[in-house]
C-alpha cells in the first residue's frame, strides 16, 4: 500500500479523536480521545519513517508513547483526586477556572 493511504487513515483517526475531545463530557473519555489523537500522530510518524527508510520516525513515536503514558498517569490521578473530593466528574461542571 502506498504511504498516502496510511496518512489518510491517520488523519481520519485524528479527527475522530478531536471530535471526541470536543463533544464528550466525561474526563475519562476525553483522555481516551487524546490517546486516539496521539496514536494518529504516531501512525503518521511511522509512515514517514517508512517513506524515508530511516528509523528516526520510530524513535519519535516511542518518545510520543512515553509522553502519552505520563499524560495518562497525571490525568487519571486528577480524576481520582476529583472523585475523592466528591466533585462531579463532568468537565462542564468543573468550571471554576473558567476554562
Amino acid at each position, binding site marked *: 500500500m502506498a504511504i498516502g493511504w496510511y496518512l489518510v487513515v491517520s488523519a481520519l483517526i485524528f479527527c475522530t479523536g478531536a471530535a471526541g475531545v470536543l463533544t464528550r463530557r466525561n474526563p475519562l473519555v476525553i483522555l481516551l480521545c487524546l490517546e486516539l489523537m496521539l496514536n494518529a500522530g504516531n501512525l503518521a510518524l511511522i509512515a514517514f519513517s517508512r517513506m524515508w527508510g530511516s528509523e528516526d520516525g520510530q*524513535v519519535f513515536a*516511542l*518518545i510520543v508513547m512515553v509522553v502519552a503514558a505520563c499524560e495518562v498517569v497525571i490525568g487519571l*490521578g486528577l480524576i481520582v483526586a476529583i472523585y475523592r473530593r466528591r466533585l462531579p466528574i463532568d468537565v462542564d461542571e468543573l468550571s471554576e477556572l473558567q476554562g
Partner: protein
Amino acid sequence: MSAVLFFIAAIGALGGAIAVVTLRNPFYAVLALVTHLVMLAALFLLLHAEFVAAAQVIVYAGAVMVLYVFVVAYVGEVEELAGGSALRILGPLMALALATVLCIAMLGSGLAGIKTKGAHYVLGFGTPRHIGTLLLTKYLFPFELASILLLAAAVGAVMLARRRRGLEPDEEILRRIRVPRPAYTGTMAEAAGERTGEAVPQLQNGGPRPVASGAAAPDEGGW
C-alpha cells in the same frame, strides 16, 4: 495480501476510534480503545516497525489500559447527560472540516514519496538493535529527558491521588468512633475526648431511652 491486511487493520482501527467516541459507557470505550490499539499495531507491522508495534501492544494495550480499567472501576460508571453547549453540535462539524482539509492536503500534495510504497526495505529495519542504537547515540538527550519526565509523572501521580487528611473531613474515622455504646466502657471516642451521642443506657437498666443528644450528660465529668 498486504493490501487486504491493510484494509482489515485500517477499518478495525477506525471502527475502534469511532466506538471510543460514541459509546456511552466508559468501560466499553476503554475496551474499544484496546481493539483500536491492537489494530494500530498491525498497521505498524505492515510499515515494518516491529519494535514499536510490540511496545504498542505491551505498554499501551497492556499496561496503560489496565490503569484505565482500574480507574473506571474505582470511579464507577458516570451518567453522562446528552446535550449541553453549542460545542456538542459544532464539534463534529469542526472535526469533519479538519478531516476534509487534511485529506485534500495529503492527497493533493506534491510529495512524490507518499505515492510510493516507501523506501527500499533493508534487512533489520525497525529492529530493537537499530532503534536502541539510535536512542543511545543520536537521540540520547530526548531519551534521558523522557526518563526524567516519567519520574516526574510518577511522583506527580502519587502526590495527586494520595489520601490527604487536610482536604477531606475524616468522616470515616468519625463514623467508626461514633458507634453508640454505653458510656465509660473504654470506647475510642472517650479516648479521643469525644462523648457526643454516647449516653445510650444499657437495656437492663430499664427506663426510657433518651433521645440521642449532642450534649454530654452532666455527670460525665471528663477525665
